[in-house]
């Protein structure tokens, strides 16, 4: 049967599910915890050093993020970040270093298509959705909060 009926495809889906290898959940979760935790611990060191220079907490988070972005991009350039991510999974993708990796990786990859149409156009192929929906969601949340409380944040 080239295009079987629903009953057959559903039966086949169950067959596939029986054969399907499970992701190594425990190993992935442990990897995510350790890698994500380590990256945040490094971030904490950076934050602490910035606080020691007299910056208040609210002003120190931005340069901390910036430094972590630089680190993430450098590790991507060195070809190391993808190795970290193999073991760390979301532990490497969720921190802001992962965001930097998602920008630096396509930039490097599409250099061959030129700086403008390759690098420039593809810089945000992976990070784009995050920025777009973060801004949209933030607008809804902030707008809503403004209407409800009429005030600024905390």
């Amino acid at each position: 049967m080239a295009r079987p009926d629903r009953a057959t495809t559903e039966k086949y889906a169950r067959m596939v599910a029986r054969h399907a290898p499970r992701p190594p959940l425990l190993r992935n979760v442990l990897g995510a915890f350790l890698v994500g935790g380590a990256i945040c611990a490094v971030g904490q060191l950076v934050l602490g050093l910035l606080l020691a220079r007299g910056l208040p907490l609210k002003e120190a988070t931005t340069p901390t993020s910036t430094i972590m972005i630089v680190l993430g991009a450098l590790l991507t350039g060195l070809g190391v970040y993808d190795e970290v991510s193999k073991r760390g999974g979301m532990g490497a993708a969720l921190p802001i270093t992962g965001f930097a990796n998602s920008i630096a990786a396509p930039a490097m990859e599409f250099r061959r298509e030129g700086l403008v149409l390759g690098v420039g156009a593809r810089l945000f192929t992976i990070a784009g959705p995050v920025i777009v929906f973060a801004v949209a969601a933030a607008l809804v949340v902030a707008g809503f909060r403004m209407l409800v409380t009429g005030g600024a944040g905390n």
Partner: protein
Amino acid sequence: MATRRKGQTLFFAGPPTILATAAVVGPREGAGPLAGWFDVVKPDRLLGQKSWELAESKMAEEAVDVALAKAGLQRREIDVLLAGDLLNQIIASSFVARSLDIPYVGLYGACSTMAEAVALGAVLVDGGYADRVCALSSSHHDTAERQYRYPVEFGSQRPPTAQWTATAAGAAVVGPPGAGRVGITHATLGRVVDWGRKDPFDMGSAMAPAAADTIAAHFRDTGRSPEDYDLVVTGDLAAVGHPLTHDLLKERGLDLEGRFVDCGRMLYDETQDAHAGASGCGCSAAVFCGYLMRNLVEGRFKRVLLVATGALHSPTSTQQGETIPCVAHAIAVEGGS
């Protein structure tokens, strides 16, 4: 007059033969379980080229040249080049054709291309339209990743069903009866089979029904049974798709126990982090042109059925939520011609 076609299967009278083959692979493939069975193992995947795509073309070109050298032929003695790969507009093959300067027919069968190319080569020779045809197929890990999935330096975790696209190329020179030691006796052309699978990171389960469909058609059309073959080899069903095809065939009364293997499962071992196994046109091409053909020529295998499988989706179709249509083409080859 002898049967020329029954159902989906073409019967070659000659039979046309395979004069020589060559397999050129990358370092990971050359370090796997089939190390030593390939003609050339390259030291890296870029080969000093400006892009991954040019590197793939270079490997494919080398496969052709090595095969021609083994057959004692010059480039200009080849009447037609039948070639395909995974890239958009099959550009790797077009660039090879430009270098070789041979009349060129581009093919797209995804990972089933090698069998498709050899089958059509046999048709041209058996039909008297060509004396010497070169069948070629290639794939490259990095060209496939940047086109189908993510940039190579992007940190993403591949699921256990994912396959590793082989960096490999295989070329086969097809000629008249008697010119080579291995004959192509039959080709079963597959039809597109789609059993509703959508995940591009699990191509094995998408292709399994197509493989089963073509294998069943082959046995039905030829009247043969699994015992007539030393091996039935699928292209790249890998660890997920291969057992599924086995079970689907069992449901149809075909038991391939003991003689059913898969190129995707043979190319890498557990330590090479290939998850479910290898994929890509180059997988079946290199395993056939290297390992299988050498064993056929040297008499260790007498009769082999190669069933190369292809997932015919595009990055656009999967993003649009479409299911993955698949195809499998089979060639029956026999040593001692």
